[in-house]
């Protein structure tokens, strides 16, 4: 099943006089269950692509279909709901809300979904245990290491059973060992739960784990290889 489809996806940033064509008519299809790594040098448009797919930004031209839905047609609140139900996000750093514990951070999307307290508790603990971070439940982000924070971010991204998780340089702020563990974890979630991952990164460790590697350069797809 095609999960994501982009059609002539184009993004031009213009601040004043300077215009930057960050994405140039990108056509891309991603199937459910894939483990995609988007690589490419700095400024090649990785983040731009991810933001457009996640509906965080609007394309200058072209379309994004998520599960067949043209997301440009969604209103602001509908898009928020769509993200809540279908998409998990993992950012580089400062993913978590500082005043909430790990448990509460993971619980947050479930609260927004209006799920009952007992059901929330069950699902949060299940995910935390799955990621082997149950003991972090009552810790606040500033009491956790960077790697632990990113694991909690993964837990928050997958707790709603989204169709897709979008991760932008999730290992950028981690040492290589912790980074490797994190990417292994994401792969495990991909295998165990069938969640589709699209990860932007120029971290070799991440690229090496890719099920499909898309290389971007100057806003176009330079290379697209499937490994499994």
């Amino acid at each position: 099943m095609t999960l994501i489809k982009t059609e002539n996806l184009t993004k031009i940033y213009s601040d004043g006089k300077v215009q930057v064509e960050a994405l140039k008519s990108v056509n891309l299809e991603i199937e459910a269950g894939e483990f995609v790594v988007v690589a490419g040098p700095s400024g090649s448009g990785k983040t731009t692509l991810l933001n457009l797919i996640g509906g965080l930004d609007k394309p200058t031209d072209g379309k994004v279909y998520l599960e067949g839905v043209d997301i440009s047609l969604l209103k602001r609140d509908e898009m928020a709901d769509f993200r809540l139900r279908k998409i998990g996000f993992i950012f580089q750093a400062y993913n978590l809300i500082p005043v909430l514990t790990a448990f509460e951070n993971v619980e947050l999307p479930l609260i927004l979904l209006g799920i009952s307290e007992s059901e929330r508790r069950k699902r949060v603990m299940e995910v935390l245990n799955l990621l082997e971070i149950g003991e972090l439940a009552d810790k606040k982000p500033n009491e956790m290491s960077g790697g632990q924070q990113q694991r909690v971010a993964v837990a928050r991204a997958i707790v709603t059973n989204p169709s897709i998780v979008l991760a932008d340089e999730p290992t950028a702020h981690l040492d290589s060992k912790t980074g490797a563990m994190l990417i292994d974890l994401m792969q495990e979630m991909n295998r165990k739960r069938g969640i589709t991952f699209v990860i932007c990164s120029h971290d070799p460790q991440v690229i090496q784990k890719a099920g499909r590697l898309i290389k971007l350069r100057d806003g176009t797809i330079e290379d697209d290889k499937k490994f499994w």
Partner: protein
Amino acid sequence: MKFFLKFAWRNIWRNKRRTLITILAVMFATSLTVVMRGLQLGSYAYFIRTIAGDYSGYIQIQRAGYKDDPSLRKTFHFTEDIKNLLDSNRDVVAYSPRLFANVLVSSGENSYGGLIYGVDPNFEVKYSNFHNKIVKGKFLNSSSSGEVVLGYKLFQNLRLNIGDEVVILGQGIDGGLCDGKFKVVGVVKLGYTELDNMVIFMGLKDLQDFLYAENRVSVISVLLSDFDRIEKVKKNFSDILNPKGLVVLGWDEVMVELKQTIDFDNASGILFLAFLIILVAFGILNTVSMSVFERFNEFGISLAIGFKNQKLALVVLFEVVIIAIIGIIIGCFLGGLVNYYIIKNPIVLTGEYASVYEDFGFEPKLVSSLNPRIFVNTALSILFISLISALVPVYRVYKLEPLKGIRYT
């Protein structure tokens, strides 16, 4: 909802110092407002009680038309029915039937205009404080006959001594002139120059005989147990007395000038407090703006994972409300304590202020009030202004786009 409140609560304590300062500011404004309003409303109540207690009464019974034409023709009979009505109402503390007359008073060569207060000592002593304001001689009593008490200035002007006789010339109810001799038994200092210059207290019976106005009175001043009884009793009495050609007026309708003075003072007090509250509003605006500003990145991430803008804005609004309510509650409590203390231990004025008070017949003290209205109005105004001042930052959160937030840092 519970979660959003918890979330707001935690956010507040993120920057303890800033939050505490804001709460302190709200608290300060609240307690200052409560104390100032307490002093104002307390003083008004005291003034009204003192003045109404001697003169107009909380309510007053007159004949219709007397207010515009206070002449003898507009007097009325103080009947048993009216007496029974007043005696049987539990809110009535005391009352005094009075007959007024403008006369000429002379002694030897000297003549002055005078205003006779015809009062029944039996009622009057229970009602007013005039008998406590005697500076020479004595006040009238139930056996007084042919006796008068004069305002001290009039007494001086006429160059009298206690025990001297004065000649009073007036116009009876039938329009004919009448005159009589009366013995001066006392001198009173009321504190109002105008009255001290012309007042003559005379037994009600004496005056009625003098003016051929048997059993007639100009007004009946009535004292009630509390201000808040005024409307009810007024209504009640009006229903019964209006058909008889009588009207029942509140103190504010009788003493229009006092009412205006109080209204003006009240308005200027409120203006000052409005200014104070606006200062607090800027403090809150500043706090909320800063705390929102610092969290743009976090808000961006919250929006990205599916938090809706309106819910984020609601959380920020909760934060403001919580801060405001904490400040308001503590402020009301502290302000209330101060007011309570001032009520129990009135601030005694000295110097110039004191003499002004004394000239007007007041005790030179500042009193306060614990009227619930003060607390409710203060709390609502400050809460309202807090919400208003939070609108701009809250609106920014409402309009925030996820990427703007995330990119912010």
